[in-house]
């Protein structure tokens, strides 16, 4: 069974049925716009929501997360010995995730799950999560996912990809995890695989056609890090940036974090929190020395990391899935597409 149809009137009851085994996340709209959140028992995901303000990364990588604790009570035998907070292994499903956000998870995985170290918190959450994507039939004006190896119907990182067919969803089951979720919901109306694939292809092509982008990344790999770093345009790129960090928080592929301790009564807790390379404190030494002491350094770091260091390090494309959130959210309209093209087109005169 690799294609099924889900009648929309069966959708909410099916999701409710799956709650026995899954914690359910999906888009909801509130006073802060649209967000991916845990769905309260009687709420259905808002599948026709516009792109969520924040990506889905927080499902695996919460904005703040306890990692270790210790008691400081010296009468206890194990005082001052840190122990891990239990990882959260409860199966969960993210409904209506955009395909580029699922691909972003695969890019972030390169960082948290590598041959040398595996981050136990992220990896446990990843193992436990099923991603049910919804193809984007009307990409927004900032979407440039097709230019970066992704797209409105990209399957990478998804367990199920669905397409909205008015009164029903057509769903392509991509993995074992996807099968399990479908079974938990009781969705079992098989669809003809050949016909369904043709339908998907038509929808994909129509959606891709709507994305207008002239973004080019083809020449980035051939340039040296130092040539790009020393390029003359960084002052200009950074000029209007206020280092607010919004672009990094909304980005599905940004993973930098800080580690901080807190003590309440006799309990010490070590947290990790999202951090941003746009902050001068990010690299500030205790001595006062700061290797990225100016805003130009920091703006350059963000673009160099996404568009060059990551590319050179992993050889898996750039660290951007083209969701356009940073473009839409930046208060001063800094546009990664323009910066990327400047880097791609840059020829040294040396």
């Amino acid at each position, binding site marked *: 069974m690799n294609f099924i149809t889900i009648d929309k009137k069966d959708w909410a009851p099916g999701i409710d049925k799956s709650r026995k085994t899954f914690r359910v996340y999906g888009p909801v709209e509130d006073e802060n716009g649209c967000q991916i959140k845990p769905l309260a028992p009687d709420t259905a995901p808002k599948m026709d929501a516009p792109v969520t303000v924040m990506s889905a990364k927080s499902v695996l990588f919460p904005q703040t997360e306890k990692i270790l604790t*210790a008691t400081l009570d010296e009468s206890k035998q194990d005082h001052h010995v*840190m122990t891990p907070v239990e990882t959260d292994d409860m199966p969960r499903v993210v409904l209506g995730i955009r395909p580029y956000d699922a691909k972003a998870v695969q890019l972030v995985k390169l960082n948290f799950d590598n041959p040398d170290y595996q981050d136990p918190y992220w990896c446990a959450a990843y193992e436990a999560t099923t991603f049910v994507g919804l193809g984007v039939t009307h990409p927004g004006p900032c979407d440039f996912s097709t230019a970066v190896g992704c797209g409105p119907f990209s399957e990478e990182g998804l367990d199920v990809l669905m397409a909205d067919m008015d009164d029903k969803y057509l769903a392509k089951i991509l993995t074992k995890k996807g099968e399990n979720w479908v079974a938990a919901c009781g969705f079992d109306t098989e669809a003809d695989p050949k016909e369904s694939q043709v339908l998907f292809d038509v929808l994909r092509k129509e959606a891709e056609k709507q994305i207008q982008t002239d973004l080019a990344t083809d020449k980035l790999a051939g340039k040296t*890090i130092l040539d790009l770093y020393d390029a003359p345009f960084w002052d200009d790129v950074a000029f209007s940036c206020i280092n607010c960090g919004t672009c990094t928080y909304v980005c599905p592929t940004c993973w930098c974090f800080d580690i901080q*301790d807190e003590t309440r009564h006799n309990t010490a807790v070590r947290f990790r929190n999202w951090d941003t390379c746009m902050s001068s404190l990010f690299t500030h030494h205790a001595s006062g020395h700061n290797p990225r002491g100016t805003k130009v350094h920091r703006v350059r770091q963000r673009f160099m990391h996404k568009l060059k*260091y990551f590319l050179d390090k992993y050889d898996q494309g750039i660290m951007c899935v083209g969701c356009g959130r940073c473009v839409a959210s930046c208060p001063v309209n800094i546009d990664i597409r323009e910066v990327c093209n400047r880097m791609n087109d840059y020829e040294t005169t040396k």
Partner: protein
Amino acid sequence: MENPYLPYPVRIDDIEVATEDKSLKTFTFVFVNPADEEKFAYKAGQFAELSIPGVGEIPIGIASSPVEKGFVKFTVFRTGVVTTHLHNMKKGDLMGIRGPLGNWYPWDKLENKNVVIIGGGFAFTTLRSSIVYMLDPANRKKFKNIDVVYGARSPGMLLYREELFDWEKRDDINMHITVDGTDDPDWKYHTGFVPQVVEDNAPVADEDTYAIVCGPPIMIKFTQPALTKLGYQPHQIIMSLENRMKCGIGMCGRCNIGKELVCKDGPVFTLEEINQTPKEY
């Protein structure tokens, strides 16, 4: 799955004031669970995260040497939140150590080579680890000449003074100790800045000579031309970088210079490698 954020529990076994102004202390730790000592097997040049529950973690170079067993040592300069808290702790207190982290000086490559060690200020910790390692009877024959240039502001600011003066008496290591200035009339060693002492005393480089340089940025900056004058090529100059760190395992993303993460791909790099990255250290 191993949890790379989880420190080994350790007990503070000894605290020594290391410099006359009391800004540096050397902490000796023993592992609460003896089996952890084996898991912590390290090489000279690596660092660890000293972890105080409820206060925070700091990356600190390992000052003890792999040939010293039963304890690990770190020398810490008091400067901010965690280092100040640590300076106020007592013998017997419990805390944690996470590591060993990062790479080390290229000991395989240095075999059968002349090694020149150049250090300034309190960046002498992993150099001490290295010297003790090389002078160990089992290792000394693996290296040709060993020269050490080490400088501090004043005699009382030199770390590990007793060991320095012991090494000074040996004939299998050439010590060039220097201070910026002193009013001690009995001072038997050099006065002057490290770069000048290097230029005047360090051996001229042949292809079998390597220099390891650790110190404040200003010292490193002026030592490079001195080494170049003596014929050292960028691949013969080995340096250890200190960027601000948190995770120490290449995940939190803050310590990079270009695509290298100083905590995981470093902290030890050759000048040749550093010359190919942005100078963000």
